[in-house]
Structures are given as structure tokens and as C-alpha cells.
């Protein structure tokens, strides 16, 4: 395991812990428990910041090279997640695989179906939330 993988593993663990503390924070009516949880959260955030700096000192990794596969809108429409086909969607010219994305149960998401260019819909609901797309595997590019 190299340095990057170690940092990534540690970061993921920290995020899970932070999520857990936030859940507790929502649930507890007791102000003392809340203060303790906030202190713990601060500790975790400072560790996260340490890991972030460490990653920069090791040099930022180059982004993965994008796959060369291209899709037209018509080709994309076949990948609707039904009858053995995977579920793909396009946003801002990139095609993403949502077959196993938790928010895309039965290849549908808030009334939207897979196999379509959803750039407009994405911007309507998730503007400035690029991290959502970063977590999805990129399959190719959408062409005219």
C-alpha cells in the first residue's frame, strides 16, 4: 500500500466517524453531550486537515485519463438499466455509470430514468455539487 492509499483509507475512516458524530449530534437533546461531540468533531477535522496537507507534501496525483468511448444520445438511450443493460447517464458531456449508485434504485432517480443526458436536471438540483459526479465511474463522452 502506497502513501496515497494510506491517506485515502484514513480519510474515509475519518469521514465515517465525522458522519457518526453528526448523527449523534442530531439525536441528542442534552447540551453537555452536544459540547463533547463538537469537541470530538473539531479533533477529527484537525486530523483531516493534517492528512490534506500531507497529501500535498507528497505531490498531488494526476487525474485518471478519461476513457475514449463515445456515445450519441441515441446510443446512450439503450443503457437504461433494464433487461440486462447497465444504467448510464450523461452530465456536462461525460457519461457516468449509475448501475450500482445507491440513489439510482431501479435505474430511476426522483422520476428521472437512466439512458439520458441529464445535464439540465443535474444543474437544477445539484449545482456546485461536483463531488456527486466525482464518486461515479466515468464510462465515456457524449458526442453529437
Amino acid at each position, binding site marked *: 500500500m502506497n502513501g496515497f492509499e494510506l491517506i485515502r483509507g484514513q480519510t474515509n475512516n475519518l469521514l465515517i466517524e465525522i*458522519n*457518526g458524530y*453528526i*448523527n*449523534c449530534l*442530531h*439525536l*441528542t*437533546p442534552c447540551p453537555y453531550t452536544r459540547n463533547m461531540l463538537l469537541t470530538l468533531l473539531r479533533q477529527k477535522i484537525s486530523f483531516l486537515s493534517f492528512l490534506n496537507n500531507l497529501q500535498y507534501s507528497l505531490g498531488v496525483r494526476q487525474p485518471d485519463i478519461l476513457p475514449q468511448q463515445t456515445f450519441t444520445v441515441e446510443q446512450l438511450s439503450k443503457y437504461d*438499466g*433494464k*433487461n*440486462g*443493460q*447497465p*444504467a448510464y447517464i450523461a452530465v456536462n458531456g461525460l457519461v457516468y455509470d449509475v*448501475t*450500482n449508485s*445507491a*440513489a439510482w*434504485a*431501479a*435505474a*430511476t*432517480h*426522483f*422520476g428521472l430514468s437512466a439512458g439520458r443526458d441529464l445535464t439540465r436536471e443535474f444543474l437544477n438540483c445539484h449545482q456546485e455539487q461536483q463531488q456527486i459526479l466525482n464518486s461515479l465511474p466515468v464510462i465515456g463522452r457524449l458526442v453529437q
Partner: protein
Amino acid sequence: MKISECPVNKLGVSAAQKLIDRVVAEARKGRLKKRNLVWLEATGCSGNIISLLNGSNPDFRYFIRDMVNLVYNNSLMASEGEAAFEHLVRVSTADFILAVEGAVATKDKGLYNVIGNWKGKPVTAIDAVRWLGERAAHVIAVGACATHGGPSAAKPNPSQSVSVQSVLKRKVIKLPGCPCHPDWFLGTLAHLLLYGQPLLDEFDRPLMFYGTLIHDLCPRRSFFEKGIFAEKLGEKTCMFKLGCRGPVTRVDCPVRQWNDYVNWPIGDDTPCIGCAQFGFPDAMEPFISYDIT
């Protein structure tokens, strides 16, 4: 460890009860005055008041005896007609908390939903919600229809129903769910009585109940992570491929459960249909799919 033994989950389940116990203790010491509650029913199915009657921790009797003066509810009050409506008129100038279940029908000036008569004239739900909504100390929208239109506003929405928030220019606490769990309402009400408005998320839902995704607390989460998916109803694995909406629905059903904390949809091998998510039912369809990869 069973999910019910997790200290975080235990804390969540008991949060409503702790708050309600505190309300009663403070009221008995004379430090807390019982406040008036108006429960208005607009365009809906009465499902939320029925759900509240099914509350067990505390039960309904405890709620009306020890927590609030329930001034008006059309399903439960003894008075009827204009005599019942008089209670509303009287409380409108006093201090009261307003709970609304059901959406607000707007077509033809709201005439699709007349909730009563006053001085011989019909009173529509839209008029009542505006009139009381502007005067109440707090407004709580209870259930899917009141919070975002819900089934009443589902396509083709013949009565042009909208949420309570759409007709009121003020903060409305939203408790989505079809129906709303008794604890979500009673816990929120108890918090209002004790400390005022609870912490809300960006959609005005109380974080103590709507803070976590169903998917995050789901006892079948490990099946999702391992890619073991149910192909038909009745299988005891992850129902993601059948169309489970747990990953987009933010509420505490997995730990709180329903009907005296006995069970919930996933526990009975049917997918979550996202009834506590905004946009239900249209945005949560299809409820079940069988030909998914």
C-alpha cells in the same frame, strides 16, 4: 450487535419520549403552561391524525391530557358545524400552535376543499390555512400532503393542490411522511413547548428525526455493499434493484419502526417507497421494478 442495541440508535428512538417526559414534568411543577393546539385538516385522507391516534409512547390520551389543549380537530371533536368552527374563531386571537395535515387545494379559489361554514358561508382550506397560519405561534405541516403536496398534488392534480408553505410567507416546520410517525410529531411539539423551534435542516425538517438516510441505518446495508440484491419481494437481501428508495429518503424508520415500534417495510421484505421524501409519490415511482440489471 443488533441495530436496536446500538447506543446511537437507542438515543434516537428515545429522544421524543425524553422530550415529552420533560414537558409533563415541567407542566406539573407549574413551570410550563399548556398551550393551545389547532389541528387543521385540509386536502388529504386523515391519515396523519389516525397515525397520531396510534401513538404509544406517549399515547394520544397522554398527549391531550398532559401536553396541550387540543382546541380543534374535525375528526375528533364533539362539536359540529358552526359550533365547532366557533372554537377556531375564539382561539384565533389567543396563543396557539397550528398543525396542518393535507395539502391546500387552490383551484377555483380553493372551493375543492371546504372545511366548514361560518355565518352561513363556506370556508375553504386555503382561507383557513392563511387566516390561522398568519396568527399562529408556530406552524407545523404534518405528513406528505401538507409538506410538499404529496398524493393530493400527484399528477394530474385535479384540485391544483400545493403545500402549506406555498400559501404562507413564514417559517413552516415540515414533517414529511405518509403518514407522519406519531413520535415525529409529538417530539417536535414537545421541543416547541420546552425550548422553541428544534434544529431544522435546509428543508425545515427537524434534524433529530430527519437527520440520517434510511440507507445509512438499514439492517440490510451489508448486502448492498456486497452487491447481493433481491430479485423478487420476500427475499431477505437488499432491495435496491427492486427500486428501494431508502438511499434517497432521510428519516429514522429503520430504528424507530412503526405500529408500536414493531416493524417497518424493509423488515417485512418490501422496499421503502420514499414516503417521507419530498416529491412522493410521483418522484419516488416506480415503487417496484423487476427487469433491472
